[in-house]
């Protein structure tokens, strides 16, 4: 059994003149929930659709569960399931009847009682027992989302792609879905979790791929993402925060902003921070506390996808004034 459940390499897709995906790689391993992040229009959903055979990539290759997958010619392999966008069903049928049809599409050989048992299990797992007998026309968006989840579970997923799976669910239901994703991963499945909720991704995912404008701008572990962040935030308390802030504005690669509750939030890489602390001492400003903050995934995400380059901003602010001493940091 392949350790890698999903391997999409160099996937490109254009819709007319607009490039939705450019050489995108996405690798998801069994036993992990892999976050797929990006601003609206970044290409996350297009990538998921390509993996599910709904969109034909212009280039690249996709392997699902260790086997090559041709989105044009092949059916989605057994064990691969997905829920992209708000799932839609036949409104004139009940939720259960919709699932029966999908189960029949999946397993042509299964007898009726086995199909019914699979459907019942999926309904129970997705928390739809009370509403499964009602026509889908009367379902709320949240109920459709649960039904979509049940439809995905019918395929006993080894690779499950979920796009905004909790966006229409109440907090309790959203937690159930997150628990389900965790459980599936613990059982050896790979789950690709696309979401705008950074706290959710942070809670669930050990690895993330961030796409922006159709390109992958980061792929790796969440810890690695934190390490790779261009600047690490620190909480700083000094004997003279105002002077310290003025000093920071003259140091390349250092940005200091007033922190809520006093002190400063300082963003800098390790070398710049060291130089800044030494400069504080030279300038007679005592350092009373300096501690590294744990950055939220959201702040990292915003930093990675923001159009403004923080280093450039710092470099501009570091031009020494004529009447100020040069601290030897701007070389």
């Amino acid at each position: 059994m392949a350790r890698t459940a999903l391997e999409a390499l160099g996937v490109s897709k254009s819709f007319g003149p607009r490039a939705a995906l450019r050489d995108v790689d996405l690798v998801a391993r069994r036993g992990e929930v892999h976050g797929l992040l990006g601003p609206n229009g970044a290409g996350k959903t297009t990538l998921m659709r390509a993996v599910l055979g709904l969109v034909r990539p212009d280039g690249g290759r996709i392997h699902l569960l260790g086997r090559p997958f041709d989105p044009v010619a092949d059916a989605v392999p057994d064990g691969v399931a997905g829920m992209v966008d708000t799932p839609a069903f036949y409104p004139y049928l009940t939720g259960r009847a919709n699932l029966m049809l999908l189960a029949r599409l999946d397993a042509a050989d299964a007898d009726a009682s086995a199909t019914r048992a699979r459907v019942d299990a999926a309904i129970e797992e997705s928390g739809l027992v009370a509403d499964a007998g009602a026509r889908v026309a009367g379902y709320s968006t949240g109920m459709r989302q649960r039904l979509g989840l049940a439809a995905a579970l019918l395929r006993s997923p080894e690779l499950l792609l979920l796009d905004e799976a909790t966006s229409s669910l109440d907090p309790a239901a959203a937690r159930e879905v997150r628990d389900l994703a965790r459980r599936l991963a613990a059982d050896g499945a790979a789950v690709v979790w696309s979401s705008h909720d950074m706290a959710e991704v942070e809670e669930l995912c050990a690895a993330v791929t961030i796409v922006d404008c159709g390109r992958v701008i980061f792929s790796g572990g969440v810890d690695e993402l934190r390490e790779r962040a261009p600047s690490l935030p620190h909480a700083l308390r000094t004997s003279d925060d105002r002077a310290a802030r003025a000093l920071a504005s003259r140091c390349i690669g250092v940005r200091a902003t007033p922190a809520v509750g006093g002190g400063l939030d300082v963003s800098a890489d390790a070398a710049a921070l060291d130089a800044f602390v030494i400069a504080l001492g030279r300038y007679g400003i005592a350092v009373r506390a300096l501690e590294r903050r744990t950055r939220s995934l959201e702040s990292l995400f915003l930093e990675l996808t923001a159009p403004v380059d923080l280093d450039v901003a710092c470099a501009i602010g570091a031009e020494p004034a004529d009447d100020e001493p040069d601290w030897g940091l701007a070389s």
Partner: protein
Amino acid sequence: MTLRGVGTVAAVECSKLAAQFKPRAALAACAAGSFAFAAALRLQTTVPEDTLFGRSAKESGFALSLVVLGFAALWVVPALTSIVAGDLFAAEDRYGTWTMMLARSRARSEVFAGKALVAFGYSALAIAVLAASSIAAGLLIIGPAPLVNLSGVALTPSQALARTAFAWVATLPAALALTAIALLLSIVTRSSAAGIGVPVVGALTMQLCALVDGPQALRTALITTAFDGWHGLLAEPRYYGPLVRGVLASVAYLVVSVGIGYRTLQRRDIAG
């Protein structure tokens, strides 16, 4: 693509059709319409003289079935053949269910073939029901008297039954060609209104074109001309030329429409 896969898709489509009102209502109308027509004809004093076999519609039940056939070819068959075919693919767009349907264990080719099979099957079934009900209504309400054919020769009831049944069968190629056009429109336009409406309007337009002078080749190429191919079966001696040309024209429409429809679906991006 496997036969089992195509069969699975077809079975699923049949379940969906069975759950919908429109296809069931159309079949019920096919079954009941001929009886209502026969009953009304029996009650009235006049006959539809300007229709083929209309003069003898109150004398022979087989003639009544052929009157129904003439009328159905003009109006009913185009509607019957597109009511399912014109909606089958477009409905997935209307409900937004392509994503659910195609992200399963069936290849697009199987989905296309299964749906097309159901569309053709429904058209054939509707015509079979209409044929059976019109013959049954004729025999039960008018009676099984011998049928005087287009050459004035009286056919025995068994001969008349065989020729009438054959005449209905002869309309199938044209009906299936219209079904294929409805399928194509359903795929290309993603609109049920276009899928159902355009074949009906198109068939009526073709009937109008057949009434005006024009090159014979053009008239032969019209699907609706194929609906008249059965006339040769009820003449003495029988002639098959129009029927064969109609079948060939119908096959051409069918192959081209199915081919373009298949290619369009295969190349389509389901991009939300």
